[in-house]
């Protein structure tokens, strides 16, 4: 899988093996056939897709150069604003909402003629780990449709793993790109905080949220990351990409690279996942990398720190939904306060309401110091622990999720148990680091297992280099196509 799908399809378009319209139509046909099973798309945009495809075909006919992502069919998570195209965060409260501007990432891709197939399913406001808190119901795993695709970017992962999009953009607040990528046997990159503009990403927890690519190969993830990263004056926390495009260093030799393993990441991880992580260490050693074992004791507080801070930010961010300026409004009310309260209670689902309540609780008088302030200071300790770790290693290798994709319906019954599945992914968001999940094998039920490579801030090149080398060495042992979608 060393050559990515984006490179291959780009070459096929340039060589006129098929037209962009034909390629787009193949994807639209497969979406029609597979989406009933996968529930990956909540909105398909054939007119938009075919209009762009036609423009690309005209460029090819005139002999003009195509950029890397030009004409490649893709999708966006439904919390990324698309001008004139309904963007709901899979919540009833944003029913019918059509943004009047594009998210910067979509503006950038649109300007390079990316073919938007549609908007994909997600947990409501990105709050969940199975995509089942979506107003439209959960997405299925393309490797076994009785299981979840993961979340919150479950729709993107289901679409890419189900070959009904070449790539997609998701958002990752506590693992929402990496966890579904791991469950669906594909690649998901959560960039460094500030590397990719958040303008137009509907906010969940602003100091954690980051947009990134979900793809089938590491090379694809690098190409998409290089395209969407950069400084944006519309995002006050934007920093942009640091250094050269990451595709330039994918194939670098990793001899002597120090790969760190923290014991705490392996606590409570299931046996199949643990065995595959150990196997990956052996692959890295055979490539000349050095395995460094160390401890990260503050990790055990990562999960409560994350839930306290993310919910606090969410309770503030979601204060804007009042039924006045956009979205759903309740049908009967006596005064403005009743209108706002009824609109919110009818418009938000149970998990969103739980998180707003927890966020309000930890920010309220009497609890602020014990929860919010304490969690912020622990966030600082976790940031420092990672800083220290990167003095002795170049990347950290960890499981992405302690288990593989679980059965549909099992997450909804117990919120705390579901929160625990995020244990390996949230530390990266707490510390603002980049992390990539790549496939590393299959468990005894033949479900994909993912592993995570974590880098120091703005070291996307290093983790993608390590990821590419592993993918290249492990090859067919770790990646299988699902039965769905376009086969070319």
């Amino acid at each position, binding site marked *: 899988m060393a050559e990515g799908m984006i490179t291959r399809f780009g070459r096929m378009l340039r060589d006129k093996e098929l037209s962009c319209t034909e390629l787009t139509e193949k994807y639209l046909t497969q979406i029609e056939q597979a989406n009933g099973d996968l529930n990956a798309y909540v909105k398909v945009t054939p007119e938009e897709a075919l209009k762009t495809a036609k423009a690309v075909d005209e460029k090819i006919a005139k002999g003009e150069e195509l950029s890397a992502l030009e004409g490649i069919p893709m999708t966006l998570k439904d919390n990324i604003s698309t001008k004139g195209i309904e963007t709901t965060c899979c919540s009833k409260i944003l029913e019918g909402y059509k943004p009047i501007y594009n998210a910067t990432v979509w503006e950038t891709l649109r300007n390079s003629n990316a073919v938007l197939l549609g908007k994909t399913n997600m947990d409501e406001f990105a709050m969940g780990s199975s995509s089942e808190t979506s107003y439209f119901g959960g997405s299925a795993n393309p490797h076994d449709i009785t299981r979840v695709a993961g979340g919150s970017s479950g729709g993107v992962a289901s679409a890419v793993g189900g070959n009904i999009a070449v790539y997609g953009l998701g958002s990752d607040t506590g693992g929402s790109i990496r966890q579904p990528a791991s469950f669906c046997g594909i690649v998901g990159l959560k960039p460094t905080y500030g590397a990719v503009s958040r303008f137009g990403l509907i906010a969940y927890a602003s100091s954690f949220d980051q947009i990134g690519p979900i793809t089938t190969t590491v090379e694809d993830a690098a190409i998409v990351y290089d395209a969407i990263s950069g400084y944006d004056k519309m995002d006050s926390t934007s920093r942009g990409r640091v250094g050269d495009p990451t595709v330039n260093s994918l194939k670098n030799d990793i001899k002597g690279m120090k790969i760190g393993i923290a014991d705490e990441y392996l606590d409570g991880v299931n046996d199949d996942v643990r065995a595959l992580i150990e196997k990956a260490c052996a692959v890295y050693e055979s490539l000349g990398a050095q395995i460094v074992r160390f401890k990260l004791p503050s990790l055990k507080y990562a999960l409560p720190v994350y839930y306290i801070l993310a919910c606090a930010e969410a309770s503030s961010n979601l204060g804007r939904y009042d039924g006045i300026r956009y979205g759903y409004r309740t049908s009967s009310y006596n005064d403005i306060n009743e209108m706002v309260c009824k609109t919110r209670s009818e418009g938000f689902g149970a998990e969103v309401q739980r998180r707003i309540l927890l966020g309000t609780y930890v920010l309220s008088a009497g609890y602020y110091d014990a929860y919010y302030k304490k*969690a*912020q200071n622990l966030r600082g300790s976790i940031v420092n622990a990672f800083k220290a770790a990167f003095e002795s290693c170049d990347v950290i290798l960890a499981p992405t999720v302690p288990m593989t994709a679980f059965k549909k319906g099992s997450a909804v019954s117990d919120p705390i148990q579901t929160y625990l599945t995020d244990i390996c992914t949230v530390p990266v968001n707490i510390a603002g680091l980049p992390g990539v999940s790549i496939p590393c094998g299959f468990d005894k039920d033949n479900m994909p297992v993912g592993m995570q490579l974590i880098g120091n801030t703005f070291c996307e090149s290093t983790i993608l280099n390590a990821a590419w080398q592993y993918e290249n060495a492990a090859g067919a042992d770790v990646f299988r196509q699902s039965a769905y979608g376009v086969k070319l």
Partner: protein
Amino acid sequence: MVTREDVINIARLSKLYIAEEDLDEMTKAMADIVKFADTINNASEDGVEFDNINNLSNAFREDEVVPSYDRDEILSNANDTDEGHFLVRKRV
């Protein structure tokens, strides 16, 4: 310990109505989540005050007047508008 009264108060601050029949379940869910959050109180801190995640300080720029969004476009997503304004009816 989270009580029913706490949940009612927090819901009021959050502008959410919790139906009477859902109150016990929500109180239990909140109590479980707060108990889980309480584990941070076992941790010792570095004594480091956390500022912001990417160490940004204020970035100043010239205050330039630039065109903003079209008023009609902005109003197009609202349930009710009148003479270029969002409208909330006093009573329905």
